[in-house]
């Protein structure tokens, strides 16, 4: 018959075309049933749609007004609703008194009222925590925003703690996060674009930006990428980042994930876009450059000289974390001539007892360290400290005594580990940790030439990488002198009159004419 013998052909080109089970969102005729006017009919429908849901509440009441009793029912999900709001602002006023239902029109004392005419809308509303009011004799339902799900108090973000900055971190509710941002920028130019992602999860995203600073083309690109996403659910911001990244095969992160409102706001002021993902405490910042991962909020609260010193320290730490084990391996295996004589003698003596070739020794130590690090994440704080001491000091010492590793290797590995913790961005730190291993392998195969080739490859990769259309290597490649004020060293704030060009801001000078220097100069 007509459609069915076409199905096999269609299935060849569009495999899911004939498979109804996977194609359910929104186009299913049976669910978009309209609301009938009889209350009992609606309630039957409700019972059918939400069968034995333990948290589903149907509260039937009669609204008395002018001696007329109007039966009504309020539907809500217990865990997701703010019961106080429901009781005080919806039910109590409507059940008695002046705000009772007159002529079938309820008037509760709550904001955010919408009407719904189909059951799909009612479902969505109820499952988002809102409550639906059905009034007998009306063919619509009123939806009240009484959402109030469990959320955590605002605390210091764990991974990005700062010494002098605010100790507030984002929470898991999108609107709260938006409120935290608005506290920093109560500005009419702060625009928000709302999007929804995920078929089942229906996560709401908000792209926040400053209209007169951010570049419209980047916004277009960002929206395009997010709208292309078609998945079940996006649970964390990290997943979203992976979907919209320029190059998911790169070890380097191309978007910043931050839990700090002050950090997000300073990025907004530079012309970047912040994407708030509901139910996730991290927000996404795009587009970013390589140098952004070395900036932290504390840099701007501290004095500029010490901030510059620490910035330089971070870049040095990046190099050390990436290259030190590889340099060590290449020097002791291929280019021993470079080591000064005294050091050579002491290294040779300590390595003489070790049965493993340098690469194996290095890998052994590094992997042990990585395992200890991962174990430390899962252990509670008290036990974690002990493991740190036991693992680090005692095992390390014992390994050297037993002749399994040389003590120089322990120093190298420990310095590398400390260096990789200095980087303020967790993602960049993990990128470096990962890249260490290929560098070590190259060094153990080809010595210093392997190192050079490896570093050349990393530079070639960074130079070609882009984040939402802006070059990742900026401000180093392409080199921009004006952006150098905030890369390796932080110049004093009164010299930074322009926004960095890496985000291609439309408004290049920062607002404000006078950046005083304190001494009136």
């Amino acid at each position, binding site marked *: 018959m007509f459609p069915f013998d076409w199905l096999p052909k269609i299935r060849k080109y569009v495999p899911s075309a004939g498979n109804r089970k996977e194609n359910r969102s929104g186009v299913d005729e049976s669910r978009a049933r309209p609301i009938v006017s009889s209350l009992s009919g609606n309630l039957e429908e409700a019972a059918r749609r939400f069968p034995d849901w333990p948290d589903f509440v149907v509260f039937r009441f009669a609204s008395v007004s002018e001696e007329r009793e109007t039966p009504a029912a309020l539907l809500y999900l217990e865990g997701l609703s703010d019961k106080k709001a429901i009781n005080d602002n919806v039910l109590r006023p409507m059940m008695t008194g002046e705000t009772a239902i007159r002529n079938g029109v309820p008037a509760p004392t709550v904001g955010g009222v919408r009407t719904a005419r189909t059951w799909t809308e009612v479902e969505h509303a109820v499952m988002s925590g809102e409550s639906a009011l059905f009034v007998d004799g009306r063919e619509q339902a009123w939806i009240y925003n009484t959402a109030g799900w469990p959320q955590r108090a605002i605390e210091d973000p764990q991974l990005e703690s700062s010494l002098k900055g605010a100790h507030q971190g984002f929470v898991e509710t999108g609107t709260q996060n938006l409120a935290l941002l608005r506290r920093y920028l109560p500005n009419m130019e702060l625009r928000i674009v709302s999007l929804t992602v995920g078929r089942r999860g229906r996560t709401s995203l908000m792209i926040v930006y400053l209209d007169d600073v951010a570049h419209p083309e980047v916004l277009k690109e960002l929206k395009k990428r997010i709208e292309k996403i078609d998945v079940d659910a996006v649970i964390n911001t990290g997943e979203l980042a992976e979907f919209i990244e320029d190059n998911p095969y790169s070890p380097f992160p191309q978007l910043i994930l931050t839990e700090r409102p002050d950090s997000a706001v300073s990025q907004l002021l530079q012309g970047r876009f912040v994407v708030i993902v509901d139910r996730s405490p991290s927000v996404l910042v795009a587009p970013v450059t390589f140098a952004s991962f070395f900036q932290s909020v504390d840099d701007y609260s501290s004095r500029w000289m010490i901030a510059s010193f620490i910035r330089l320290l971070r870049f040095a730490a990046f190099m050390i974390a990436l290259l030190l084990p590889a340099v060590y391996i290449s020097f002791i295996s*291929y*280019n021993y*001539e*470079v*080591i*000064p*004589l005294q050091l050579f003698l002491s290294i040779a003596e300590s390595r003489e007892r070790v049965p493993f070739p340098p690469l194996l020794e290095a890998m052994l130590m590094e992997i042990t360290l990585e395992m200890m690090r991962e174990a430390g994440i899962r252990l509670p704080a008290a036990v974690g400290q002990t493991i740190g001491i036991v693992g680090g000091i005692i095992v390390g010492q014992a390994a050297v005594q037993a002749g399994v590793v040389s003590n120089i290797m322990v120093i190298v590995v420990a310095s590398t580990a400390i260096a990789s913790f200095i980087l303020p961005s967790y993602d960049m730190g993990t990128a470096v940790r990962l890249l260490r291993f290929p560098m070590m392998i190259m060094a153990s195969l*080809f*010595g*210093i*030439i*392997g*190192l*050079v*080739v490896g570093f*050349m*490859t990393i*530079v*070639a*990769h960074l*130079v*070609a990488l882009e984040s939402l259309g802006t*070059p990742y*290597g900026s401000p*180093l*490649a*392409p*080199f921009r002198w004006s952006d150098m004020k905030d890369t390796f060293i932080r110049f004093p704030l009164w010299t930074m009159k322009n926004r960095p060009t890496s985000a291609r801001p439309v408004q290049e000078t920062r607002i404000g004419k006078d950046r005083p220097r304190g001494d009136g100069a």
Partner: protein
Amino acid sequence: MRTTALNEITLMQYIVLIHSSQVGTGIFSLPRKIADSSGTDGWISILIAWAANTLAGCVILLVMRKYPDDTLPDLFRKLFGKAVGKLLLIPVIAYYSYYGFSVLVNSMLYIKAWFLPYTPGYLIVLLFAVPTFMIVRNGMRVLGRYVEIVFYMMAWMPLFLLIPLDQGHWIHLLPVLKEGWKPIVRGVHDTLFSFAGMETLFFIYPFLRDKKRAFHGLFIASSLTLVLYLFVTISCFVLFAPDEIGMLNQPLMNLLKTIEFRFLERFDMIFLALYLFVVSRCWILYSFSAIYSASRLFDRPDHTKPAAVFLVIAAAIVFVHQPTWNEADRSETVLTILNEWYMFAFPVVLYVAVKGKELLGRLRSE
């Protein structure tokens, strides 16, 4: 297919690109060549070679100025028509590939001599093929960025040559012009090739965003190379005996061997390893020119396939043929002759052709 607008480079990148096309592996043996032909007055022949090459670059720019957004393949097409233009591209591709290949092979020979004598040559070439491939296939924009960042990263290198200088005997340079001008003129021919690199202007200039500064950029780049070569040559003359330099194959390496620190002996090895970044700019630029022309030959906008083909062929040649130092020397003499024709004679021919076309056009419109 009009890629020049998307792949713009800044003035600084333009300068560094020209500079890197001139500085390759020749800098190590340059003092010896000069000492062999002109003695300690050879530094004057460097100045003359610089002037000649910059002039050639100016002629090329004069040609390209008429067709600002067209690279050499496009220029050929416009001047000589599609078929002949494509035919003319083939020797051009051969020239650039040969040049890039020989720089790559030279680096490979240095690496084999100083670092990895037992590792097979093709393996070294394959190793360096990886970053080369990554950069070349992304076009001129990425190449410009890479070249610029390597320039800044390696800008400190010449400063280290100041360290042994206080042990030098400046008296070696006196008296100036001891044997007259004849040896200097003889030396010019040998040093001419060290400044070669202007022919890449055919591929660099169209991508420059700020075309008004093209001549300034050319001059600055060439002068940078001049300063570098003069510095290296004079340092070598000052530190080594005049009759000794002829016996040293790579005087610059011997010079670097004398630099020692408390925490790092044998600084020359570190220096040579890092210098590979500088040399990589040269071969990547030449390979890019060849690959770009190849993709134009086949009318493809994508550089990936020609890049892969070029690098694989290079590795294969090294695998089969296993080049030696003497062969590298001989191929350099061949390249010198080719370069003289291509860089000095060919732009003049092109200029005549361009002017001719202009005249024809004007005559036709009258």
